[in-house]
């Protein structure tokens, strides 16, 4: 039973061509997160939504945007992908604060920039 679903699993885009990654959840969790994970590195939090409230990390580039049209869906938009944006992008959800409530991760979308 899939709980956090990410589409597509693999995405190839061209340098500078906008791309959107999708995440959906069947858990009805109120918090949704986007992480960037580069090869052999730790996941790095880009931003998260607590219900409709958007929380951006201070060091997340402006090139990265997010939308959450409803509880179930959250999108990551990369306006002008650079070669350095090639990474695995992980979506996660939790019910309330992450420390007290387990984060559930999706399988990730691996982004290649050509």
């Amino acid at each position, binding site marked *: 039973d899939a709980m*956090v679903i*990410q589409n597509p699993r693999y995405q190839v885009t061209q340098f500078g061509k906008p791309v959107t990654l999708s995440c959906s959840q069947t858990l009805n969790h109120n918090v949704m997160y986007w992480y960037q994970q580069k090869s*052999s*590195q*730790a*996941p*790095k*939090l880009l931003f*998260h939504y607590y219900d409709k409230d958007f929380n951006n990390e201070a060091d997340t580039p402006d090139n990265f945007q997010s939308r959450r049209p409803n509880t179930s869906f959250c999108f990551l938009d990369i306006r002008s992908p650079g070669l350095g944006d090639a990474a695995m992008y*992980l979506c*996660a959800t939790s019910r309330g*604060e*992450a*420390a*007290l409530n*387990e*984060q559930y*991760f*999706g*399988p*990730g979308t691996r982004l290649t920039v050509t």
Partner: protein
Amino acid sequence: AQSVTQLDSQVPVFEEAPVELRCNYSSSVSVYLFWYVQYPNQGLQLLLKYLSGSTLVKGINGFEAEFNKSQTSFHLRKPSVHISDTAEYFCAVSDKRNDYKLSFGAGTTVTVRA
């Protein structure tokens, strides 16, 4: 600011042998600690967490970890590993000062050989 150091980037181990993955953290306030596992081409899955109480925490798949406040460590152990334990393991910390967001270590790759 909090930080997490995983002391071993690669740990090769034979099947049915014990394994210990080391994790040290730095934080000036009380912390919550986590271990996540990432199997190839999958998202992260919570193995166990320490919030409070007993310093010995038991998780899924036979893993356990011990919180040592004086040594600021949260090492993960399993007495007998299986081939299926081959994966990447991430230690993570969160605290109130960082709004309980997760900060991950760089990861330890465990390779179990027959």
